[in-house]
């Protein structure tokens, strides 16, 4: 793939809540097709950083450049429309509806329509295909099941499918692995690898370091809202500061 400068460029982004400096002038760059991991102990400002990039919070200072375009402080839907799609830690689907209905909303978005050449197509069918892609067994009618009947793992997969449905260029996964069993995790990883192979750039905020390190090319470590380390997975934990930051907090 061609590499025209930084795909996403975050330069000293900052956000303050009242007295607390949640994110303190964090900067990093991201090349297209890269797989970046963001880790850090609880309350180190990972999610806030994501909210800043995706426009859910307005930064007090700093810039976010996407493909050279300044997207700082744009409304979230505008940013999503550019192809920066995120998932959420807390999955809040339509519990009372069949699973595939949860993909209708992303499939309804202007971006999808545009990319599909001005027409949506049969959303239900597309939704079911997408779910099958992320491992909803069609023959056992899982995509048709009422959402509330699905186990947690499926909901997380559904969240992933939601992002894929948007035909994203950059996907930001917020603690996708949290609360997954080993088996569920194992079934999740290939999907992500597939996304990477399709050239989708990915940022992943994780606590499950082992799995993250297996797929990430690069890892950023946040602590108290500041970036304390940036390195390739196998070296990143070597830094003293990171050890200190993680001391006492579990490393799975």
């Amino acid at each position: 793939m061609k590499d025209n400068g930084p795909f996403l460029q975050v330069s000293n982004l900052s956000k303050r809540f009242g007295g607390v400096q949640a994110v303190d002038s964090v900067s990093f760059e991201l090349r297209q097709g890269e797989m970046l991991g963001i880790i850090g102990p609880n309350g180190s400002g990972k999610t806030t950083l994501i909210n800043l990039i995706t426009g859910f919070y307005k930064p007090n200072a700093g810039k976010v450049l996407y493909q050279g375009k300044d997207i700082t402080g744009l409304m979230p839907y505008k940013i999503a429309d550019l192809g920066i799609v995120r998932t959420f830690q807390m999955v809040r689907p339509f519990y009372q509806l069949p699973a595939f209905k949860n993909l209708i909303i992303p499939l309804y978005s202007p971006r999808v329509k545009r990319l599909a050449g001005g027409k949506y197509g049969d959303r239900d069918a597309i939704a079911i295909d997408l779910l099958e892609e992320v491992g909803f067994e069609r023959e056992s009618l899982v995509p048709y099941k009422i959402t509330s009947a699905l186990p947690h793992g499926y909901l997380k997969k559904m969240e992933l499918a939601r992002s894929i449905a948007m035909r994203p260029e950059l996907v930001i996964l917020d603690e996708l692995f949290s609360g997954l069993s080993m088996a569920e995790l194992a079934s999740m990883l290939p999907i992500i690898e597939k996304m990477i192979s399709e050239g989708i750039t990915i940022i992943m905020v994780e606590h499950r370091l082992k799995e993250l390190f297996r797929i990430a090319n690069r890892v950023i470590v946040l602590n108290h809202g500041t970036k304390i380390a940036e390195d390739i997975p196998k070296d990143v934990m070597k830094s003293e500061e990171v050890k200190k930051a993680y001391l006492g907090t579990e490393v799975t």
Partner: protein
Amino acid sequence: MKPAIGMKYRKERIDRGIKARTEDIFALLSFREMLYLLAPRAILLLAVFITPLFLGMYGKKVLINTAVFALLAMSWDFLISVGMVSLGQALFFGVGAYIAGILNDSLKWSPLFTIPIATLGGGAICSILLAPVLRLRGVYFAMVTLAMPLMLMRIIEATKIFGGTEGLHGLAPLPGVWLELYLSLGMVIAVLFFLRRLINTDYGLVLSGIRDNDRSVLSSGINIYWYKMQAVFVASAIGAFAGAFMTHAYMFVGMPAFELDYSILPIAAGVVGGTGTFAGSMLGAFILVTLSEILRGVGGVRIVFYSVFLVIFIVVLPEGIFHYLQRKYHQFERWVKVEE
């Protein structure tokens, strides 16, 4: 039937087989199942269109008022199902009422034109009025919607426009009570089925998405404020129709068109009937107005009784009457022993 006290029991609810079948398999197996599906709607339609035949003149008038409140209640319910708590149905009602009144008073247009224009124009004006506050949520939005009609009312009082406190009188009436009756009732039914259909389309799914989880709708690249605006338009158009209709039904429009009752009663109706299904809030409106009419007999204490009933309703059936009935219709219940 609740079994003897002492032993540990829990209530279990099971969908009636017929419901499961009629829901999933779309080829209905028997006439009976067809009936099961159609009965509620058929009964509703019959009830709505036949009862007027048995009512005296006054009964008809009451029914018309009921229809108006039913419309307002459904418009409130619709906003709720898009996650907007409105305390200002009076705004929609009043704007519609005044547009119709002004057009008829100054341009002498017949209700045939004023009502449709008021409906659409009212919808537009209200959407524009509320556009700046669409990003408010919960009680903050509610507060603004509560304030707006009161403010318009005061502005009319202060600036003496549109007949000031005295209002516009002697407007063109509708051609007759039958038309009034079936126009309003027909509208109620139309709106009911329209909204119920709308909310089940993909578009409606997006709307309910905004209510349940607007973050994920936003992150799907959908401009929720634009959608909220459309929802407000639909809701306020319904309210505006009600207002315009009342203007002509009573040949009068004035400041009272913005009064608090038009905001409170629909909410009460929605709450009593149960929100989210529109049928619920419609039912609620019918129950409440009927109640207040029955209570006319008792004179001054009427409002007291009325409120007492309301409180009891709410405490006994917080889910709303309609949801209760629906459950009874679709599920059967039994007490099963809890094994320890």
